[in-house]
C-alpha cells in the first residue's frame, strides 16, 4: 500500500511549547502536514475548522484536558472516527487504560522515543488508508450493484410486456391453425417460434423475480388454505403442452388432499422451473415423473427425469449465485442459470428445502417440500 504522507494532517495538542515544537519538527520531517493547539478548547476549535486525520493529544492541559477533548470528539459523529494517540507523561497502567477508555487508538509515554513515535503514527495512518480504501471499494460496489439491478429490472420490465403479448398471439395461432392449412414445414416453424417465445417469457419472468428477491423488493405473500394438489395440477397442465413439443410425457404419481400456507406464485414458479428443466434435459419419448408424497407435517414433491443427468463437477456449481452455470438441453435449449437459484430461494421462503440427486447419463431428481399441518387437512 503506497501512502503519501503529504495527504495526511496531524493535529498536535499540547500546552508545552517545547513539546509542540519538537513534535511538529519530527512529524513535518516525516512528510505529514501539521496543525497545533495549546489546550483542549483550541483543539476542538481547530478540528471544527479543519478535520485532521490523526490527533496527538496531551492529557494534562489547562482549560480542557485531553480526556474531555477525546470524549467530546467521540460524541460527535462527524469526528468520532478521528484516531487519537494520547501522548502523556502520565504513564501508569491506570492512566493508559483510562486513555483507551476515552477512545484512544494508541498511547505514547513522554518523554517519547522518536522512532517509536513515528512508527506508531505511521501505523495509524496505514489503518486510516486501509479503511478509506475499503470505504471507496464498498461505495463502488454498492453503485455497481444498484446499476446492475436497475439494468436487470428495466430489461425485465420493458421486455416482459411485449413478449407476453407475442406469447398470447403465438398460443392463439398454434391453437387455431391446423398443420394441413399452412403445411408441415410452416407449422413446425410456428411451433418452434411458440416454444422460443414461451422460453423467453419464462426467462424474463425469472429475471424479474430474481432481481426483486435479491434487492429486497419481493415480499413473500402467504395465503392460507392453498390446495396443494390443485396447484400442482395447474402447473403440470401448462407444462404438458411444452413437453408434448418434445414428445416427453409428464406423469403425476401420488396425490394429496392437504392444504398449506404458502406464497402461491413462488410455489408455482418453483415447480414450473423444475419441470421445465426436467423437460429440457429429457430425451424425446421419455418420461418426467412428478411424485407427491405426504409426511407428517409436510408434502414432498419430486420432479424426476430420465435424461442427461448432471456431472459431479456441475452438481457442485448448482445453487451458487456467484457462479453462472447453465447448460444446453437435449434439443439445444438455452438456459439462463437463474431457474434453480430462484427455486432454491422461493422454496426456502415457503419454509421448505430443495434437494437433488443426479447421475450422469441416467437423469436427475429434484425434490422440495412444502410445510403443512395435518390439522389443516382439507375437509
Amino acid at each position, binding site marked *: 500500500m503506497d501512502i503519501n504522507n503529504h495527504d495526511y494532517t496531524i493535529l498536535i495538542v499540547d*500546552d*508545552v*511549547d*517545547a*513539546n509542540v*515544537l*519538537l513534535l511538529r*519538527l*519530527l512529524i513535518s*520531517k516525516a512528510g505529514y502536514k501539521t496543525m497545533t493547539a495549546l489546550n483542549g478548547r483550541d483543539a476542538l476549535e481547530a478540528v471544527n475548522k479543519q478535520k485532521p486525520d490523526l490527533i496527538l493529544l496531551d492529557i*494534562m492541559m*489547562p482549560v480542557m484536558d485531553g480526556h474531555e477533548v477525546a470524549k467530546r470528539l467521540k460524541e460527535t459523529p462527524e469526528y468520532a472516527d478521528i484516531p487519537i494517540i494520547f501522548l502523556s*507523561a*502520565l504513564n501508569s497502567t491506570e492512566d493508559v487504560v483510562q486513555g483507551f477508555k476515552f477512545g484512544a487508538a494508541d498511547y505514547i509515554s*513522554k*518523554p517519547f522515543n*522518536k522512532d517509536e513515535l513515528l512508527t506508531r503514527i505511521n501505523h495509524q495512518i496505514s489503518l486510516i488508508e486501509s479503511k478509506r480504501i475499503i470505504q471507496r471499494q464498498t461505495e463502488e460496489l454498492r453503485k455497481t450493484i444498484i446499476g446492475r439491478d436497475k439494468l436487470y429490472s428495466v430489461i425485465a420490465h420493458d421486455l416482459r410486456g411485449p413478449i407476453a403479448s407475442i406469447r398470447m398471439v403465438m398460443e392463439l395461432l398454434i391453437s387455431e391453425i391446423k398443420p394441413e392449412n399452412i403445411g408441415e414445414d410452416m407449422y413446425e416453424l410456428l411451433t418452434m417460434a411458440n416454444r422460443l417465445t414461451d422460453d423467453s417469457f419464462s426467462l424474463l419472468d425469472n429475471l424479474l423475480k430474481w432481481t426483486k428477491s435479491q434487492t429486497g423488493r419481493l415480499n413473500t405473500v402467504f395465503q392460507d388454505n392453498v390446495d396443494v394438489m390443485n396447484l400442482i395440477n395447474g402447473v403440470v397442465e401448462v407444462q404438458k403442452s411444452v413437453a408434448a413439443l418434445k414428445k416427453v410425457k409428464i406423469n403425476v404419481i401420488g396425490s394429496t388432499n392437504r392444504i398449506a400456507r404458502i406464497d402461491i406464485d413462488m410455489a408455482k414458479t418453483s415447480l414450473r422451473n423444475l419441470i421445465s428443466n426436467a423437460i429440457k434435459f429429457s430425451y424425446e419419448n421419455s418420461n418426467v415423473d412428478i411424485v407427491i408424497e405426504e409426511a407428517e407435517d409436510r408434502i414432498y414433491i419430486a420432479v424426476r427425469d430420465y435424461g442427461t443427468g448432471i456431472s459431479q463437477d456441475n452438481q457442485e456449481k448448482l445453487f451458487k449465485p456467484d457462479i453462472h452455470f447453465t447448460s444446453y438441453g437435449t434439443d439445444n435449449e438455452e438456459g439462463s442459470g437463474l431457474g434453480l437459484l430462484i427455486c432454491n430461494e422461493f422454496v426456502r421462503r415457503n419454509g421448505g428445502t430443495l434437494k437433488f440427486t443426479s447421475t450422469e447419463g441416467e437423469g436427475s431428481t429434484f425434490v422440495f417440500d412444502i410445510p403443512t399441518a395435518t390439522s389443516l387437512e382439507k375437509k
Partner: protein
Amino acid sequence: MQDSIDNQKYPIPDLSYLRELTDGDEDAMKEIISIFLDEAPKLIKMMKESAEAKDHEKLKFATHKLITQLTYVGVNSIVPEVKLINSGSVNMKDLNERIERIILVIENSITYLKGLI
C-alpha cells in the same frame, strides 16, 4: 554547541536526547532550550507556591509539565525526584526541602543553558 561546564557541584545537562530528537538541528535545539529557560522559572514558582499552600493538584500539574521539559534539556538527575513528588506529594513530610533541592539544580542548569544560546 558546547556541553561542557566547569561547575562540579551539579550534574551537567545532557543534551544528547535533544540532539537525537532534532537530528542535531542547532536552531531547533536552541529554540527548545529557550522555551525551557522561559518556562522553568514559572514552573519553579508554581511548585514553590503550591507546596507552601499545600495545593497538591497544582503541584502535580507543575511537576507534570516539568518532567518532560527537564528530560528534553537533559537535567535527568532530578527527574526521578520530580516524578516522586508528582505522584505522592501528599505524604511527603520533607516536601519543601525536596523542592528546594530540585530548584537549586534547575537554577544551576538554567545558568549553564543560558551560556549555550
